[in-house]
């Protein structure tokens, strides 16, 4: 109601503060929007993990999930004006890197043994 505020000048969208009487179609993004996006991204990633046959694609889906988490963290960092979220996010990225390395090494090992990357065929534990 109070009108649109302009955010930081780093966007380059510095504008004079607008008065309240000007109300064009403005997009007010609250934390909820970020959460929704993050959730959907996470869900998509989860879907890929559960569904995809190719092992590499599964790993990629895992990265998607990580991204969603990062997005969530950063959003809350901004909202709560705390650097903790961003620091955590850095760590998450670090961990993701390590995990990707290991996962890919495993992929190669798996491929060498099974000559396939089809996760459906890796079912020796059946029964």
């Amino acid at each position, binding site marked *: 109601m109070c009108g649109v505020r302009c955010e930081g000048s780093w966007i380059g969208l510095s*504008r004079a503060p607008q008065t309240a009487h000007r109300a064009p179609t403005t997009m007010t993004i609250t934390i909820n929007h*970020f959460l929704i996006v993050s959730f959907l991204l996470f869900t998509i990633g989860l879907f890929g993990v559960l569904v995809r046959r190719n092992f590499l694609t599964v790993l990629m889906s895992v990265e*998607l999930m990580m991204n969603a988490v*990062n997005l969530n963290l950063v959003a809350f960092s901004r*909202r709560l004006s705390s650097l903790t979220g961003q620091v955590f996010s850095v760590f998450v990225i670090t961990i993701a890197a390590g995990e990707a390395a290991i996962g890919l090494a495993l992929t190669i090992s798996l491929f060498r*043994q099974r000559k396939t*990357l089809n996760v459906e065929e890796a079912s020796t534990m059946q029964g």
Partner: protein
Amino acid sequence: MTESAASGVLLTGGAGWAFVVFAVLTLGTAVAVVVAKNPVHSALFLLASFLVVACLFILEQAEFVGAVQILVYGGGIMVLFLFVIMLVHQRMVAGAKAFQHQWDIALLFLLVFLVPFLYVLGTEKFPEIPQNPDAFRMIGTRVVGNTQAVAWSLYRDYLLPFEVASVFLLVAMVGAVVLGKRSVEKVD
């Protein structure tokens, strides 16, 4: 500095529209990752999603994280992925269905997952906006850049996790080397 934070609004105006664009792109590329049959396509779409997410980070005034995202994810992890894809690619071309047998159940489950999320979203009360909305780029009372603020926080408050992370990376590296060695016997 930004009164907007006091009312919980994060982005307005053009930034808002930018967010929408980026959000749509993120979700689109993510879907493409999951849906693409060819893993190379998946990898490329993933790379694209990384970049878009980095843009979102920057929109949130988390420049350092965005930069790290591009560098590590895009430059490191995706390259790794592509290398491995190229290593094992020729065996996978033969017409394999992209989707598994339980895609319907998974889809249903995930849609069900939506319910509590929306419920939480509707009822959850988030904490109060702190007094200083720009605290995340301040060291004490000085306003510095995001990187500097993060470094200050990282090396002072979170030193131990930092060290542990570095050890972790070492272990991961060693492990990857071991796991990737050729002389692993076949276990049937």
